[in-house]
Structures are given as C-alpha cells and as structure tokens.
C-alpha cells in the first residue's frame, strides 16, 4: 500500500516549483510564464533593450516580465517579503527554525526577559526583601551582601540547575564574543540588482530556510544581547547567584516567606507584596471574625497599598481584587524607593490588622451589621466562636483587641 505523507504549505509550495526553474533577479523571484508562443512574441516586441526588460503600460509599473534564453519569466514576489512573511505563509517551518535558533542561543530557557527594569528589581530584591524576610547571619555579615543574598535565595527557592548553566554560558559567550557567522543566503548577498541566477526549487527552499534562520538569529540575538546587558553587573558572581538573577529576570516573579513580587501581565509594572497571613478582628460585641490571608501590595506606578486578591474588609469599599486600602492619611508624594515601599506596605498591613476600631466602627462597613440591613458586603461568613482554639493558642492573633 502506498503511504501518503501529509505535506505542509512549505513542502507543497516547493513541490509545485519542482518542475520549473526559477529566475532570481534584483531581490525578486521570477517564475516561468506559461504562455502560448503568440503571447510570447508580443511580449518580446514590447520588450526594449534586449533580453531583460520591464514592461510598462501607461506609466504604471505592472509586473515585470523578463526573457531568459527565450523563456518569459514573470515577477512574482520579493525575496525580502517572502522571508518576512514566512511565519504566516509557512508556520510549521518558521516555528521549527525558531525553536532550533532558540535552542542554540538560549538552551532550554525562556527566550524573553519578563522583568525589564533591573533598578526596580534590585530595589525589591536587595533593599525591601531583607525587611520582611529573616536572613541567615552569614548573609547579613557578607561583604557583598546582594551577592550573598542571591546565593542564599537561589538555594531557598530551589533555582533549577539549568539556569546556572545557562547563565554561565551567557557569560562565556560575552567573554568570547564569537558569534558564528552563517553563510548568507543569495537573497542578501548573492544577488544585487544586476545579478541574476536561474535556480532550482531545492536551492530556493534551502536559501529560504537559511534566510529565515538568519532573520531569527538577528531578532533573537538582540534578545540575547539584552540578557547580557541585564546580567553584566553580576558577571563576577558565582554561578548559582548569577543563575538566580537570570531565573528572576525570565520568570518575572518570586515569593519567599510571604514576601514576593511579580511583573503584572497587563502593563509590566512590578508589583511588590507581603502576605497578611490569617488574623482575627473583634467587633463591638466582642465577637471574632477570622480574615483569610491576602497579599497587600504596591506597584512601581502607585505606592498606595492595595489588596491583590479578591478580598473584603471594613476598610475596603468592595469585595474584589486591586482595591486601595483605606488609610488614615494619603501616601501621595512617595517615590519608588525602598523606604517608601516598606512604609506603604506596612501602612497597608497595619490598616488591615489594626485599622478597624470596634467602638468607632470606622471604615466603609461595620463588622457587626445584621445581614438583613446591609448592602452587598457582610462578614457573617467570617465569624468564629469567641473561644476558638486558634485564637486562644495565639496561632491566629486578634489584631484589634488593644484599642
């Protein structure tokens, strides 16, 4: 039985060309024109200046027809356009070549830096994180504290070994600076306006693949250069520390002991957060309400503390994510510096923990409202017994009992 191999667009395109010879001239591909001899004669008459001439009609540039060894060839597509649109025309081929180039340049890692602003990243990592995470003594006493911190975090979060190897590869390439030069496809070098070549479908296919590979290498090479630029300040760090930086830059997120940050998908802004953990609030009648964990955050754009997750609280207007926490003051004028970030995060946490006064019943909502009389937000589902063992043992602190 004859087996039929399913062909993709690319194979079909070049199979169709198999029986023809293709003329390449001036950066364009000319295909033989299947015309009857009479039309060919007319074209030849219209042609001026020998075998290779353009045909013009009423001053408008039509498709060029050229004669080579008596055969008319018609201009079809510009080589540059074919290469540029190859990912759409031949998606399978383009994806295959991209994967190959990515593998060559980046190994198994992601070929994209998610956290673009390393200044913001360094602020979050080396200045804000030590405030909220307990560090071992050797990190605190280290001469190069950021390096020691990166080294410790690399172990703490379990950065995969491949990031270490990848980072070392990038460093080595930067030192060697020897990017292998590919043989140029004829679309770039082999043919200028004067040059012309008759090529077979196989040559055309091979050259298109080479051009595509070169285009991908150029595009991804820029990204690789971006990697080098971002990692250059840490070149002298040991491989695990360098690998950790690469891990954070490409992953765009980190969380250690309830403190973390991530690059927001919608606008790329850095979101720095601290988890509140579980805590209980007391109402006017001394009843307890257990509040779940939530992330209190600030962004590199706005230092007003917000809740990242969908959350309800007397000091929040609604039950939804990204709400600003009601504070006793405005944090306007704060800039994205470590001191201000810490202050804003602590303001947000303190407001959630200690901001609600059961006697004053301040805020948008009251804890002790009866469900029948209130709007959408009520806290009945959070109510726990006053002798809840978690509160009695101190596992869950009652945070507004001091007022």
């Amino acid at each position: 039985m004859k087996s039929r191999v399913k062909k993709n667009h690319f194979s079909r395109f070049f199979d169709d060309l198999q029986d023809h010879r293709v003329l390449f001239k001036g950066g364009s591909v000319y295909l033989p024109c299947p015309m009857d001899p009479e039309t060919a004669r007319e074209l030849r008459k219209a042609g001026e200046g020998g075998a290779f001439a353009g045909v013009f009609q009423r001053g408008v540039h039509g498709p060029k027809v050229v004669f080579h060894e008596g055969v008319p060839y018609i201009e079809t597509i510009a080589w540059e356009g074919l290469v540029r649109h190859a990912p759409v025309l031949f998606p399978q081929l383009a994806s295959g070549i991209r994967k190959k180039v990515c593998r060559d340049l980046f190994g198994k890692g992601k070929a994209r830096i998610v956290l673009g602003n390393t200044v913001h990243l360094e602020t979050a990592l080396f200045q804000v994180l030590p405030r909220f995470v307990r560090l071992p003594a050797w990190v605190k006493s280290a001469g190069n504290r950021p390096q020691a911190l990166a080294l410790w975090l690399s172990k703490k979060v379990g950065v995969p070994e491949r990031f270490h190897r990848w980072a070392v590869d990038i460093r080595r390439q930067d030192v060697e600076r020897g990017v292998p030069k590919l043989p140029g496809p004829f679309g770039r070098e082999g043919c200028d306006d004067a040059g012309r070549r008759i090529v077979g479908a196989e040559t055309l296919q091979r050259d298109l693949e080479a051009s595509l590979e070169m285009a991908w290498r150029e595009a991804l090479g820029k990204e690789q250069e971006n990697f080098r630029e971002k990692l250059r300040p840490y070149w002298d760090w040991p491989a695990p520390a360098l690998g950790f930086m690469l891990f954070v830059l490409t992953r765009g997120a980190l969380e250690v002991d309830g403190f973390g940050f991530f690059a927001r998908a919608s606008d790329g802004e850095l979101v720095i957060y601290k988890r509140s953990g579980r805590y209980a609030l007391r109402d006017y009648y001394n009843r307890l309400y257990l509040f779940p964990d939530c992330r209190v955050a600030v962004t590199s754009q706005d230092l007003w503390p917000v809740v990242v997750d969908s959350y309800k609280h007397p000091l929040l207007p609604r039950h939804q994510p990204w709400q600003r926490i009601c504070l006793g003051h405005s944090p306007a004028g704060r800039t994205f510096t470590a001191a201000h970030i810490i202050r804003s995060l602590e303001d947000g946490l303190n407001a959630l923990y200690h901001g609600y006064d059961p006697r004053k019943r301040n805020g948008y909502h009251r804890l002790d409202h009866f469900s029948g009389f209130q709007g959408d937000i009520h806290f009945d589902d959070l109510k726990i017994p006053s002798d809840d063992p978690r509160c009695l043992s101190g596992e869950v602190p009652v945070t507004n009992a001091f007022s």
Partner: protein
Amino acid sequence: MTIRVLEEKEKERRKLPVPLVVEILPGQAAEGLLEVFEPGTYEGKTLQELVDVILARQDLSIEEREILEDILLQMERGVLLCAGRPIEGDPLERARVEETDEGEKYYYVAVRALRPQEGGFPAPVHVCEKGR
C-alpha cells in the same frame, strides 16, 4: 480539694528552666532587636519591664542601633503589641517554646512596635467615614 488539669504545653511552659528571648520588631519587619534573658533573670518581671531593659541598652552595634531608631520612630505615635495585645503581665503567657539548631530549648516572645492605622480617607473621595 479541686484538681486542675494542666495541658502538656502549659506544663512544659511552666517548668522549663530555659532562657527567654524577647525580640522587639519595628513595624512588620522580620527581624528586630533581640535580648536573651537567662533563667533567674526574668522571673517575676512583666513583659513591659523586659522591653524597657532592651530599649535602655547602650552596648548596641551599628546595625542594632539602626533597628532601635526604627523602633523608637514607630513608637512615637504607636504602641507595643504582643500577639495583637498590649504588653502587660507575665511574658511567659505569650511565649512559645522554640529550639535552636543544636536542639536547645528557649522561650520566644515577639513584640511589635507599630503605628496603628485608622481607616480614614481613601483618595480621591472622602467616603471612608460612611460606616460610622
């Protein structure tokens, strides 16, 4: 005669002749100013008295001095809280038993110096007073 049954944890807490570690943390910081009180030096004292001892220390390193300044800054308009309550009474009531890497037990009490926030005015509209 009344018989009172003590929980294992409570029994352990009362009997252990181990050091007491009190740590004052500025704000929501993970690390603060530590003081180790050996057995015999903290019994009969309130948590407030132990905190006063720590805050009155003069032999601080540069790093500890920075933490102390932060604590004092927080305390300007703030409070000292232990497990969400004011620091009053026996420190062991709020202490939990911890172990060093070498397996030595000790009591640990964390005190936070906080500037409690009161729900006020969310920008741009001053509507947070609605609940009052």
